[in-house]
């Protein structure tokens, strides 16, 4: 896996091997380039999508928010998942996970041709095709994220899943507790019709 083209091919078609190699090589510049391509190219599609549905005024806000939130998610996701993986006995490095997570976003660029195909379909099939494309890409990215954690920390699939969902579980538990007890502070209720 000499260059970035080989790495990208392997991410799409041999993800297990690819993630292991990427984690070992720790080529951060490649990771950053792939992440930004995977972020910016779908945003281009989103830009035209937003204009198409009359949300031009919101474009700078949405795109700006998407860029910032994606980067924060990348940095913080890598940090939090690395911490959890270490708690669970993983031996990988945070940098390895960070770079593999950047590569794991690569399938997102495929949303562009899929949406173009969907746009050419009859109206009745358009929404279904777009939803299906979004779901496929989401599932693919999720699968690559699991593979990345598995290969970086030499975990089983179940353990890698646990690493991913642990922050969500923690938020749910805290939310449930907060929901129960903050209710006592809600003394002013509006009238309902």
């Amino acid at each position, binding site marked *: 896996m000499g260059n970035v083209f080989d790495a990208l091919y392997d991410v799409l078609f041999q993800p297990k091997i690819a993630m292991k190699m990427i984690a070992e090589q720790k080529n951060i510049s490649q990771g950053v380039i792939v992440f930004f391509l995977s972020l910016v190219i779908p945003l281009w599609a989103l830009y035209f999508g937003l204009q198409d549905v009359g949300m031009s005024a919101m474009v700078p806000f949405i795109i700006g928010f998407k860029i910032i939130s994606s980067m924060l998610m990348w940095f913080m996701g890598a940090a939090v998942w690395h911490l959890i993986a270490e708690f669970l006995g993983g031996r990988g490095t945070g940098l390895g996970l960070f770079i593999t997570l950047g590569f794991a976003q690569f399938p997102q660029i495929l949303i562009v041709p899929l949406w173009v195909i969907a746009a050419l379909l009859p109206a009745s099939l358009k929404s279904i095709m777009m*939803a299906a494309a979004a779901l496929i890409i989401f599932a693919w990215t999720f699968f690559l994220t699991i593979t990345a954690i598995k290969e970086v920390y030499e975990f089983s699939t179940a353990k890698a899943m646990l690493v991913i969902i642990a922050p969500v579980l923690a938020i749910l538990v805290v939310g449930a507790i907060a929901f129960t007890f903050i209710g006592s502070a809600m003394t002013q209720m509006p*009238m309902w019709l």
Partner: protein
Amino acid sequence: MYKKSVIIVIGVVIALSLIGLAFQGFGAKNKGKVSQADKIAIIYVDGVIIGGRGQSSVLMEQGGTDQIIKQIHQARDDGSVKAVVLRINSPGGSAAASQEVGEELKKLRAQGKVVVTSMGDVAASGGYWLAACTDKIYANPTTMTGSIGVYMPYANWEELYKKVGIYQEKIKSGPHKDILSPERQMTDEEREIIQVMVDDIYNQFVDVVAQGRKMDKEQVKKLADGRIYTGNQAKQLGLVDELGNMYDAIDGASQLAGIEGKPTIKEFGKTSPWNMLFGPSEKISTLLEQFLLQKASNQMNLGVPLEATPEKWQVK
């Protein structure tokens, strides 16, 4: 080498797709500038009617009557908009928010614009308040509407708090400052205070319906016991003018506004990419959930229906 070729092919496909999308967006932009003729605006009232700006996220904005009022103002200021169809799909909401939108609808009518309601799955309670402020109401025969009434939800978690071991202390400026607090039983005096408020808002609601539907106040009160009606029943009772769907409402608005030929439609409100993908089915399920939730909470407030309780629990 073949790996590089595959990635280059994928890159070319993506580049061509981006160019395709750019042209598609350009076409859509041009398509939007077709006509300057008389227009009918469609304003959607979806979900629980609640005041403020609602919840805003990256891909969508939900709830909050500020958006609806802004759209009403846009329709008012657009000279080409001759009529507005208010498409209501709402189980109700807060009294103040409904009143606020209702008053804006009245002002819109006062400026000479025709306002027609089209009821979707549900246009009950606060949704009906808005409908009553329009010139004409269309409902599907199976639409759920009515529910003219007011309630104030109150949950008493005293027993739960005792079990968990929470004892809340309060330093109050007045005896009723913590009225409706969930950690203690409401007093009779407080119940009376709330009841007076509920009755006041109920009377305001009845006035709006009586005025909007040109009905006698006593006649409205007979119908306004909080029950829901089908569109069919509502038509027979005079709460609805015509049975029909949104397109019938558009035709009706067109006739009332004196628009000749097929009217140009201008839809207000945002359609987010998320809604575009998952909108219709999600919207329906959410509405039904909200409606059932509201009805369920009504039931909970009143207690379990008598017939459903064991005989020994029933108060004779």
